[in-house]
């Protein structure tokens, strides 16, 4: 593995900055309403093509809604869903991982089997079950994504905790008479924060794709909200004649996921070199790879004397 470059990640940084600004200032940037269209203006191609109109730079969909405006507003949905789902699953998974790793023994076995169950849930099946039992709603999307995501946090944080709790400062905190709650919150948690930051970033791409998948399947954000996945699903029937309905949200999603993954890789290399072997494979493979807590040189020096 080459040494991480010292250069700042300007490419993903620029894209993410643009994404956030777009989401925040969507009402000022979007030329038209994202949800209301003029049916007489339907299926207008992008402006540079024949029949294209200046009012709809990226064309319109089958209800005459402006594609550009919908892509712009769609960034809000992707961003909010990602933040909420990662916040929710990250909090739950981290808490579980910390307790599991620090307590060890029976608690650990129990919580980790629970996590295994979480990891083995098939995404599409869950989505289909959801469609059968409930209405698609914004809240349900966040819940389902969190349900699929928390075990990744739990696993990774547990592994990290196992390494940290062997450090002498933890034993010394026990000698100082401090409680487990104190030790977890003051000693272990602050030391897993860099890892947490890295996994969170690496999950953003996964969440956006998952939200897209759920919306595409019709169990995600309900129409007429301008979710990117929903737009892709909408345009599917018109791929041959009106490809712009599908292409532009697809490109937006592609760029976003690419940027957050590059950013995550960069963060991982700079904040937490131990995670480097993990690679970004963790996003595509549902079975998160648990890193073996590596003996650190300093820890090894202390452990060498079994005395």
């Amino acid at each position, binding site marked *: 593995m080459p040494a991480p470059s010292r250069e700042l990640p300007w490419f993903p940084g620029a894209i993410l900055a643009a994404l956030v600004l777009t989401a925040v200032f969507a009402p000022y940037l979007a030329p038209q309403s994202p949800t209301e269209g003029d049916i007489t203006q339907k299926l207008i191609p992008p402006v540079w093509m024949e029949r294209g109109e200046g009012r709809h730079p990226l064309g319109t969909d089958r209800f005459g809604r402006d594609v550009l405006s919908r892509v712009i507003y769609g960034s809000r949905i992707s961003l909010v869903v990602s933040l909420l789902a990662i916040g929710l699953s990250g909090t739950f998974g981290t808490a579980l991982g910390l307790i599991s790793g620090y307590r060890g023994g029976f608690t650990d076995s129990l919580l980790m089997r629970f996590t295994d169950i979480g990891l083995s849930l098939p995404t599409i099946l869950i989505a289909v079950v959801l469609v059968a039992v409930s209405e698609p709603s914004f809240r349900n999307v966040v819940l389902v994504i969190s349900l699929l995501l928390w075990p990744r946090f739990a696993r990774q944080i547990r592994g990290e905790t196992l390494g940290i709790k062997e450090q002498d*400062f933890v034993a010394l905190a026990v*000698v100082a008479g401090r409680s487990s709650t104190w030790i977890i919150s003051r000693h272990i948690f*602050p030391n897993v924060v860099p890892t947490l930051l890295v996994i969170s970033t690496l999950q953003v791409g996964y969440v956006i794709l998952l939200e897209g998948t759920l919306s595409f399947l019709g169990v995600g954000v309900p129409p007429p909200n301008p979710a990117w996945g929903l737009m892709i699903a909408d345009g599917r029937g018109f791929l041959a004649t009106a490809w712009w309905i599908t292409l532009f949200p697809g490109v937006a999603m592609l760029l976003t996921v690419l940027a957050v993954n590059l950013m995550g890789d960069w963060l991982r290399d700079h904040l937490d070199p131990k995670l480097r072997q993990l690679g970004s494979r963790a996003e595509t493979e549902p079975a998160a790879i648990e890193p073996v807590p590596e003996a650190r040189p300093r*820890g090894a020096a*202390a452990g060498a*004397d079994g*005395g």
Partner: protein
Amino acid sequence: MIEAIGLKKYFPVSSGFAIGSRGSVKALDGVSMKVGAGETLGIVGESGSGKTTLAKIILLLERPTAGSLRFDGKEVAAFTRDDLARYRRSVQAVFQDPYSSLNPRMRVEHIVAEPLPRDNGMSRAEKTERVREVLQLVGLRRDSGGLYPHEFSGGQRQRIAIARALVTYPKFIVLDEPVSALDVSIRAQILNLLKGLQEKLGLAYVIISHDLAAARYLATRLAVMYAGKLVETGECDAVYGEPLHPYTEALLSAALPLHPSARRQRIVLRGEVPNPVKPPDGCRFHPRCPKAMERCRNEEPEGREVKPGRFTACHLY
């Protein structure tokens, strides 16, 4: 003040899928010792002799398999909450690795204040003042509390670790290899600091070390461990002057003499430290002992007082 009687610690060895355990590692096998107020007990022995396990039991980080540990005459196993809180205030520790023993994400003032109980009647200002006081006591700047550990050198970090151990006005500090991880040039400074603090504050120490010179510098009494057992105890100078147990003799002969031109005879031991899962029958040292007799193979020697104040477990006496 602290007294251990027949402490044993066995770690079960489990073997893969087999249910239950196959034997156990006898890390500590019947160790008794006593440390009085203001006294320093040096515990020496090679790696794997059980020194650190003993320290962990004293610090209540491990529970002994058998035996009893008493603090001011009170059985530790029968401690009430208040007793435990008092023990935690009275007994502190300094460990070997000054990197691993300080949380890199905590400021020095919080590290040092950690042993202070939240409800001990001290106001925040008093606690801050106490932290400054101990920082000064260990030779650091009073105002270094706002810094993080990585801003200090190894020796300074060990001073921070010592400051933390002092903050609750303890009576007793367990020093587990306190200078082994430090540069040779820093060791004397830290040892002098520890000695000075002991005189000033009337502390009792247990110093665990494989560095005989460090142990000798601080210790008033010495205990030699081999394969989970105490083989010899006595006044430090007496043990150095006239080691009784053949293992002590060999161990001391491996240390540099105080005077460079002193005549020394090296006793080189053959063989390996015994497997702690299956220690040899009889005396644990007999396979390596230059003076082993037939009796050593079959009969385990008891620790006896063979001279006034000198205990050893050997059939020679």
